[in-house]
């Protein structure tokens, strides 16, 4: 397990706990009492860290190398019965965007999400979770399939952005994202969107228009990454912490500003500390939201979805 610099106190306790376990196994000494004490200390350290996390530290947690990615969620939540569907039917199969069918507790869902790679080779194959236009078009094709068969859609968002490459421009990255946003606004089935890692800009929103838009506790969602914001507004890469503060990109700020519908709590210390626990929480949350949405008439579902997004924005007018 990799540790971030601010996870140092947790690392220390992890090591002490591991040592205690090793000692117990090796020498048969009963370490129960000190283990209980250490576990309590760990819980306390995690609670302390959680209370003091800065926006930039949340961004770092959202990118933690131990954090589960989209396919891990889908496979765990669907009990390994996931059928992945490939291709946009025009250009190719984008490996940075995955999609397919699965069921949670007997209810089938169409899953969509950006996929990051788990090692160097896979990161390249998955293009670091940065989809090309064909990825967005595959996502739309599958979402229209879900609509055709009257089944709900779950999107798992984890991307540092849509890919800014030459071919992406040639094949209409802007048009692909725009089309998805428009079409998602009027899908006649429930759409549940969850930011599970990074929610960067149009690349995230391209699969992010839903009846419920939720953020996991240690994720971020904004119009730009703190690093790029720093480079553009401060003309230097050194202001990423300040930019992270200014952008109000944490789940708490996004909820406070009415731009998302809710926050899903992560296991103590973050999703990377207990992926299994995270999968269970998310399964339960998806089912809960689906039950709220499934009996709504599709006209109402679409009207409320459009109304929700149309209400976002802060401005004032003087009487004239």
């Amino acid at each position, binding site marked *: 397990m990799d540790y971030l610099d601010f996870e140092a106190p947790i690392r220390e306790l992890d090591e002490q706990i591991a040592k205690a376990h090793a000692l117990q196994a090796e020498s048969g000494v009963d370490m129960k009492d000190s283990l209980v004490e250490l576990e309590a200390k760990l819980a306390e350290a995690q609670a302390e860290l959680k209370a003091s996390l800065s926006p930039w530290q949340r961004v770092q947690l959202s990118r933690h190398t131990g954090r589960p990615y989209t396919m891990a969620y889908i496979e765990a939540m669907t009990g390994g019965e996931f059928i992945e569907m490939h291709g946009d039917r025009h250009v190719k199969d984008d490996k940075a965007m995955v999609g397919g069918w699965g069921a949670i507790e007997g209810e089938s869902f169409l899953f969509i999400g950006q996929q990051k790679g788990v090692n160097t080779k896979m990161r390249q194959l998955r293009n670091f979770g940065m989809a090309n236009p064909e990825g967005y078009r595959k996502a739309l094709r599958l979402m229209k399939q879900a609509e055709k068969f009257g089944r709900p859609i779950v999107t798992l968002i984890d991307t540092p952005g*849509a*890919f*800014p*490459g*030459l071919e*992406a*421009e*040639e*094949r*209409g*990255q*802007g*048009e692909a*994202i*725009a*089309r998805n*946003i*428009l*079409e998602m*606004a*009027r899908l006649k089935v429930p759409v549940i969107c969850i930011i599970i890692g990074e929610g960067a*800009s*149009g690349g995230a*929103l*391209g699969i*992010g*228009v839903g009846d419920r838009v939720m953020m996991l506790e240690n994720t971020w*969602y*904004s*119009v*730009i990454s703190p690093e790029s*914001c720093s480079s*553009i*507004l*401060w003309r230097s890469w050194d202001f990423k912490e300040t930019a992270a503060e*200014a*952008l*109000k*990109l944490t789940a708490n700020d*996004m909820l406070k*500003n009415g*731009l998302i519908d809710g926050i899903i709590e992560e296991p103590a210390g973050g999703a990377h500390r207990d992926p299994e626990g995270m999968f269970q929480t998310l399964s339960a949350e998806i089912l809960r939201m689906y039950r709220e949405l499934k009996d709504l008439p599709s006209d109402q579902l679409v009207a409320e*979805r*459009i109304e929700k*997004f*149309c209400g*976002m*924005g*802060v*401005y*004032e*007018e*003087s*009487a*004239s």
Partner: protein
Amino acid sequence: MSTDWFHRQEAGITTPTQEKKETPDGLWHGCPKCKVIVSAEDHVNNVWVCGNCGFHNGIDAKEYFSFLFDGGNYTELNPTMVSKDPLQFEDTKKYSDRLKATQVKTGLQDALTSATGEMNGIPVAIAAMNFKFIGGSMGSVVGEKIARTIDYSLKHNIPFIMISKSGGARMMEAAFSLMQMAKTSAKLALLDEAKIPYISLLTDPTTGGVTASYAMLGDINIAEPGALIGFAGPRVVKETIGKDLPDGFQTSEFVKEHGFLDFIVERKHLKARMSQWLRFVGNLPAPVKAE
């Protein structure tokens, strides 16, 4: 060795200061591309396009309205709407101060002006962006004014025309800015359901979140010649691929060749071509006298 060649023998500028003629501002226009100079009046009459090389100078909403609406007559929609500063954003400057300074400097309220009137006798609603207002960036006011212009089109059952000119999202409004992409696209879904025509005109430059929302969603997407159109900016693409970009990358002509524009139109033909398309899709009779 003589160094006479080094010393000026005659005074360089021989016109005495008191005889210097000042060129009054605003009387002449020099083309930034071919440098040919024309009178400001001719420049306006030529819809801000160079008569020599065809360069389309960037213009803002009011200039478009002056020649698109019949007789330059139109009614502005929601003229008093201004941005607030929901995030109390501060970079090298406070966003609230930046807004006030830009309003004073430009005489504009924000980066979008919308209006309704007749175009060759066809009632239309037009929303057009003002690049000189913080790079035409899309914040809450831009999104809301587009949404309301679409509402106006829906209510009066008249075509909607969007003139884009923007660097993309307004970072100082962060996720509020991002959600304007969803807001405007959702409204366009309603316009589409109502089968009301939507023309999207892309002008120089149209990039970022504007390209990735309303600018690419027209029943027809059209552009002025030579405009920069893209999702990622050319500098970012260059950094990503690590080599120089091909000539003409992300120009109107490039975007049309790749299938994302219906046609490219010179500004002087813009009004006629847009009205013509509207007449065809609406099967309207040809006007008695087209402008």
